[in-house]
């Protein structure tokens, strides 16, 4: 009798336990689905807001390269051609853009074009000098306001005083659309130009290069130092109070807010050492300091994961400690070390606050070509664009986020690739 009661108890407990199992499985599954949904939503928002930035609006403009207006002759030298009066050609082209434009309308029409049109008219001529004294149909960049209107990003049904384009301009744009004198093409400017006050010609090339130079500095500074420090701490350092203190402080440093490192860069690198402001060199140094603890911790973990028997084996055949470490332990730890470094670099890539402190938030309209040139960085660029009032910058910031995400994705891909490659060797 007692026996059967005990049995029943065991059976019901078993049922309860397996139910518990089931429930936990579903909890986990739900959690995963939720996080996936959030991720998909995030990516969707970014993409739906940003994809239009990869297109720009261009307008067909008839330009008359008259030699009298240009003050050039067909025999002019290249240097003279540079000095041609292209602004007069452009003025003429805009005056004749629509038939019978009044003076006030010319002003309005002029605002449909990008500031970059002067340069486009000039570049077209310099590339094809034989077009002198002919009329050419050239596709030139439209103003951001037109661009945004045609992409549907700015609304036309609001009162005139709350619109960038007034009713007359709207009717001109509609006319252009009707006559097929306007179209949307791939926005090469976004990838080839640096920041600009004018959204239609603002690009991420400058901040991308800035980020690249910054990451290069971070890598050059932090990788050797981190490897050296972690190998020393893990393999050579005596275990005493001082090394313990160092270890604790490395973990503490990893938790220090990044803006504090920015202050350090401002106070020490800029003010004491007088390094140039807003440059990848300074930004990279600050970010290297910030990522060092992360990389050291990852490196030490991967060094620790190498079985001690390998080192013992090397020592037993008479290798010195250095040989045992650098011939056997470090190569085995390298995949983990690389992954840790790339995680650190990814962290550095997304960091904004310390860069603001050392002045990388300045408006830099040029693409940097070196470590000591002022430049922006991708996250700071996004911050700047998000802050801008101009509607045209909104899609740009979403697109720049896409660029930074792809950049991160590629870095991780490289990490995985390197890891697999090194692991295959063994």
């Amino acid at each position, binding site marked *: 009798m007692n026996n059967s009661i005990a049995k029943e108890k065991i059976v019901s407990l078993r049922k309860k336990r397996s139910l518990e199992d089931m429930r936990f499985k579903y909890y986990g599954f739900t959690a995963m689905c939720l996080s996936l949904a959030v991720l998909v939503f995030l990516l969707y928002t970014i993409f739906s807001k940003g994809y239009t930035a990869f297109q720009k609006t261009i307008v067909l403009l008839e330009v008359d390269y008259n030699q009298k207006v240009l003050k050039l002759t067909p025999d002019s030298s290249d240097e003279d051609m540079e000095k041609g009066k292209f602004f007069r050609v452009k003025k003429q082209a805009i005056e004749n853009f629509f038939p019978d434009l009044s003076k006030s309308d010319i002003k309005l029409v002029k605002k449909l074009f990008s500031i970059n049109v002067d340069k486009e008219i000039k570049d077209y001529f310099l590339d094809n000098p034989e077009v002198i004294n002919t009329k050419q149909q050239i596709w030139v960049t439209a103003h951001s306001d037109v661009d945004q209107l045609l992409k549907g990003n700015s609304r036309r049904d609001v009162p005139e005083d709350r619109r960038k384009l007034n009713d007359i301009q709207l009717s001109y744009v509609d006319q252009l659309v009707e006559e097929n004198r306007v179209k949307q093409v791939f926005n090469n400017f976004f990838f080839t130009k640096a920041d600009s006050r004018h959204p239609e010609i603002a690009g991420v090339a400058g901040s991308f290069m800035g980020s690249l130079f910054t990451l290069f500095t971070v890598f050059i500074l932090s990788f050797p130092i981190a490897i050296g420090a972690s190998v020393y701490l893990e393999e050579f350092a005596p275990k005493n109070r001082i090394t313990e203190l160092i270890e604790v402080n490395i973990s503490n440093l990893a938790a220090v807010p990044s803006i504090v490192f920015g202050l350090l860069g401002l106070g020490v690198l800029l003010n004491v050492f007088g390094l140039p402001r807003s440059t990848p060199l300074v930004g990279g140094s600050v970010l290297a300091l910030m990522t060092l603890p992360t990389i050291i911790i990852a490196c030490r973990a991967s060094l620790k994961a190498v079985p001690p028997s*390998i080192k*013992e*084996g090397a*020592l037993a055949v*008479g*290798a010195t400690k250095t040989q045992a470490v650098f011939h*056997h332990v470090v190569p085995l730890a390298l995949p983990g070390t690389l992954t840790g470094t790339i995680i650190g670099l990814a962290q550095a890539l997304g960091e904004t606050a310390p860069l603001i402190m050392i002045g990388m938030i300045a408006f830099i309209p040029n693409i940097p070509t070196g470590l000591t040139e002022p430049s922006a960085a991708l996250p700071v660029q996004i911050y700047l664009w998000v802050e801008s009032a101009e509607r045209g910058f909104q899609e740009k910031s979403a697109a720049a986020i896409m660029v930074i995400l792809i950049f991160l994705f590629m870095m991780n891909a490289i990490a995985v690739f390197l890891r697999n490659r090194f692991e295959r060797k*063994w």
Partner: protein
Amino acid sequence: MSNSKILANGVDVYYGSKQALFGISMDIKEKEVTALIGPSGCGKSTFLRCINRMNDLIEICKVSGSIKVDNEEIISEKTDVVSLRSKIGMVFQKPNPFPKSIFDNVAYGPTIHGLVDSKNELEEIVHSSLKKAGLFDEVKDRLNEPGTSLSGGQQQRLCIARAIAVNPEIILMDEPCSALDPIATAIIEELIDELRLNYTIIIVTHSMQQAARVSQKTCFFHLGELIETGETNKIFTNPDNTKTQDYITGRFG
């Protein structure tokens, strides 16, 4: 009567404040197999690792007393552990080939010691070491495959080949067969018997039968003390000490 190769005198070992070995004195003869037996934690591995100073790796381990190898003191600050370890090879409990090719595993020692001048010489050393370890015929066609792809017994013989490639005089073996099956164990035991002609071998083992089979001398450790040492035959048939008697008859340990 062969010569004394290793002479230990009053060796004490401390792990931190805990004493692991109490005044061990021992005389190990040249070209003999000496087996160290005793229950777990009795200090036989600790003693073995004193001989090639592997205990240096353990921060808290302090060794005092005297161990002379070929009449040279090795428990001293001045001892060059690198040359000591090239003279005294070691084979570990768990096979630990480097995650490199079979060839590179054996070639590593001779390369770092600069024992060879040319690729041919290196190849010769690798081949002869593998032959001496009785592994050559099994792996000669796949010297470039990773050492870790071999079976456990083969890996252990690879580690023996790696140890003898630097031409040591003494080989220390720390329970070399504890991770192997009986067939692989038999092969290694046979190998030890052959190696005895050229090397002085000290082997730590938990298997009484193994000690009886391969060794000429046996030392019985208990709780950090050397209880009895003598001819293997004598220890296993007629030990002087009752503790030895109890251990080898399986009454404890």
